[in-house]
């Protein structure tokens, strides 16, 4: 019995299947199995068996003619199964397999696949088949008497060579036509590909693209203009519309402060200065606005339109966002938490905007009077930071992309809808994957797809001259690098072995196109993969296989705590 988890939901023990259907507990429920220790080769073989369990479930999803994997719903026997073709998600749904020692292998690859997904959003199935092939090769060599640590050194040196070979194949994705071709290859959907071409042409590689379920059949898109921050007013008394739900300020001055503003003396001078301007208003963004300062704003709101909001978020992220607002409105952040006086501010030190909307949940700025050079410099800095974090810290990366989107004008939303809820979910996931593929390709370039890049990397390994005990590791890696093409060919109905042999005989850029069943110029055919995904799949697969291969002892604990994360 394989236990599955649905969308990060942990499985209540004993409720996965009806009791009557449960096999003997000693055989299948790993929590009831006796604790114990296993040593090599039994430990490694059990890990291999676990990896095989998982990879065999994922293997059919690799390539353009992939099949789906149906996962039973967690709740309700009358619900349709979840149809998945994404390796990481399939692995994530499987949270336990029967034997405790085998389960360790399955959970090891599950984490490897999720790590790849988190980093590059795709490439899970490729990772799985490379890892499995490399582990099999390593175990075979080990059984034949080769030293595992020497094999490992050989594989690690081979990995460096293979990555260099992949880099040498890279082509940039620069034009809109490049994006359309790539998105078409990734999704097989021309309408989606054209829409993504337009969106990425507008937003650039760091554009904030949100994929949502839509109501209109097919795929539609829209652009959401303006910069909005999730922080509302400090008092609903600032509302100035008829329904008292929103404050709208036209041509406001903008004061951004890192500390609290509580004393009326602090803001009275600047409020007077604003009052002297025709039709002007004031927006204060600060850690907090309270006490007599707030009273002063509210008691004069009929004469001077104003609103005060709390700075969005907290800590370093708050500082960063305050800086963004300051740049966008052409001002600077007042460090009143460090002793700088708000009371001494001059009007020309404040920012300006065309309009500001504030309600209890958020505030939005339209038409900030940014200094053009400073704004473009700030945008360039954020883009540079995104390059720095790409593939390393997805949370920070998400924050940076969100900040950039606000500065360059907003976000693009793709609405996806299918004939049934299940189709909508499946299409949405495919669109998300395509969006991610395009982003990765714009950042890191593309290489020939369909497993061909790995074939060229395997050929590059032959140039390495290593001692024999390490060279066997190189050979193992070379064979593992052929595995993605072998599986893609098999999944498309061809015989993988001869296809791999023929692939080695093709000129640069040529390879097997599983869609047509022909060897052809893959650049021209648009059969390409993003290099970051190809590299991440290889690196993580090698890491996972080496971890399993060099593990000589496994320990099973009684009743380990259940985790579904990832």
């Amino acid at each position, binding site marked *: 019995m394989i236990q599955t988890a649905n969308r990060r939901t942990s499985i209540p023990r004993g409720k996965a299947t009806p009791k009557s259907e449960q096999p003997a507990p000693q055989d299948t429920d790993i929590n009831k199995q006796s604790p114990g220790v296993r040593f090599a080769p039994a430990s490694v073989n059990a890990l291999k068996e676990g990896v095989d369990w998982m990879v065999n479930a994922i293997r059919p999803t690799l390539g353009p003619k992939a099949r789906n994997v149906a996962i039973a719903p967690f709740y309700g026997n009358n619900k349709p199964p979840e149809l998945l073709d994404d390796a990481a998600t399939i692995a994530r749904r499987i949270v336990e397999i029967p034997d405790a020692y085998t389960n360790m292998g399955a959970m090891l690859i599950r984490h490897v696949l999720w790590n790849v997904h988190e980093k590059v959003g795709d490439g899970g199935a490729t990772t799985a088949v490379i890892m499995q092939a490399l582990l099999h090769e390593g175990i075979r060599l080990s059984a034949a008497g080769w030293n595992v640590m020497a094999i490992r050194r050989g594989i690690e040196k081979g990995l460096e060579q293979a990555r260099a070979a992949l880099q040498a194949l890279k082509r940039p994705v620069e034009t809109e036509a490049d994006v359309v071709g790539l998105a078409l290859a990734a999704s097989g959907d021309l309408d989606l590909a054209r829409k993504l071409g337009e969106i990425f042409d*507008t937003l650039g590689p760091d554009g904030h693209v949100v994929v949502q379920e839509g109501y209109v059949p097919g795929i539609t898109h829209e652009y959401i203009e303006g910069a909005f921050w999730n922080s509302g007013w400090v008092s609903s008394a600032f509302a100035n519309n008829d329904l008292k739900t929103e404050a709208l300020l036209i041509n406001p001055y903008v004061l951004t402060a890192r500390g609290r503003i509580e004393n009326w003396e602090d803001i009275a001078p600047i409020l007077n200065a604003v009052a002297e301007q025709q039709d002007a208003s004031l927006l204060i963004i600060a850690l907090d606005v309270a006490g007599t300062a707030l009273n002063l704003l509210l008691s004069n709101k009929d004469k001077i339109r104003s609103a005060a909001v709390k700075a969005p978020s907290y800590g370093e992220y708050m500082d960063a966002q305050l800086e963004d607002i300051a740049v966008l409105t052409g001002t600077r952040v007042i460090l009143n938490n460090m002793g700088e006086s708000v009371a001494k501010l001059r009007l020309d030190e404040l920012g300006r905007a*065309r309009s500001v909307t504030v309600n209890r949940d958020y505030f939005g700025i339209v*038409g900030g009077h*940014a200094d053009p050079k400073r*704004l473009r410099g700030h945008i360039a800095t954020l883009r540079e930071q995104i390059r720095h974090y790409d593939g390393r810290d997805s949370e920070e990366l998400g924050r940076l992309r969100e900040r950039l989107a606000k500065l360059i004008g907003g976000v693009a939303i793709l609405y996806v809808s299918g004939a049934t809820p299940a189709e909508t979910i499946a299409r949405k996931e495919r669109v998300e994957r395509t969006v991610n593929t395009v982003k990765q390709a714009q950042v890191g370039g593309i290489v020939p797809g369909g497993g061909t890049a790995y074939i060229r990397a395997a050929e590059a390994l032959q140039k390495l001259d290593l001692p024999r005990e390490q060279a066997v590791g190189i050979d193992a890696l070379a064979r593992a690098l052929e595995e993605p093409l072998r599986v893609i060919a098999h999944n498309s109905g061809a015989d993988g072995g001869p296809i791999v042999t023929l692939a080695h005989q093709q000129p640069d850029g040529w390879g097997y196109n599983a869609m047509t069943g022909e060897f052809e110029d893959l650049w021209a055919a648009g059969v390409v993969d993003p290099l970051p995904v190809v590299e991440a799949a290889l690196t993580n697969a090698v890491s996972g296989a080496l971890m399993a291969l060099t593990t000589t002892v496994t320990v099973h604990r009684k009743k380990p705590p259940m985790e579904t994360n990832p």
Partner: protein
Amino acid sequence: MTDQEQNMPEQQIIMTMAISPTVAEDGILFAVTNEGTLSYSPNEGRDWQPVKLPGSGLAMSVAVSPSFDQDGLMWVSQPEGVIVWSNDRGKIWRDTYITRQASAASVLAPSPTVATDGLVLAATLEDGVLRSGDRGRTWSPANFGLLDLKTLALAVCPSFASEQIALVATETALFRSRNGGLSWKEVGFWEDAVQSLAFSPDFAHDRRAWAGTENSGLFMSADGGLTWQSVESFPHISINALAAVSTSQQWLLAGTTGGLYASADMGTTWAITVPDVNILALVTAGRGESLRTFAAAETGELYVSRGKPDHWEKIG
């Protein structure tokens, strides 16, 4: 519109114009003056009648439909941030609905196929671009990607129906849209304001567009507005208006503070055809012998060229 025909009052200066696409036959020309008056000429600018507008009665800019001879459709923006439209050549005006309060529109640019696609763009003084998809009845902001909202010039390409390419110049940069104004992407940033824009009449094939700046002269794009290069042969004077016209050859005209310049080789070499006047506005319609081009000068004079724009005649 009144029945009383008269010359344009001498103290009034034409700031912007709109021309009937069949001006050679119907002679219809509209002009907005520095005093905010909208005037109508039925005879290629020789006589003028004031046009009565609703609200303040003042006009900021005017545009006519590319199929004006058939639908009589036209739009006028007013200083108070209102756009009105008429489908009877300006006799009766109707209000439009703008989803967000906006400043006055200084340029109105209908799609060449507005009768079918209904698209009209408007460049406002402080609120970026407004977009209408229903022939100017309702308008909403279309500023996605604009880094500042003070717009100076706006143009849509002749092949807009198939390509939906538009350019808008703001105080700090030039932006391009390839989806009919739904979103914009910065394509030029020269630390100088672009005041005028023009697309080649044969844009679908030659991909050319021009941008006239305040102090840095003329820029040209040969790839549909994606990249821009300075036109070295053009003097660094303020370019208020640009027009690209097609006779037996293609002409590029530049209305500058130093006069009206014309190039018969699309910007490679230039000749000054109306010297020593500050040209504020240029409009053109027709092709070949039916081509009419009008140039309005700061001195209040109006010039017309019939056919090849190498010879100009002062009107009135």
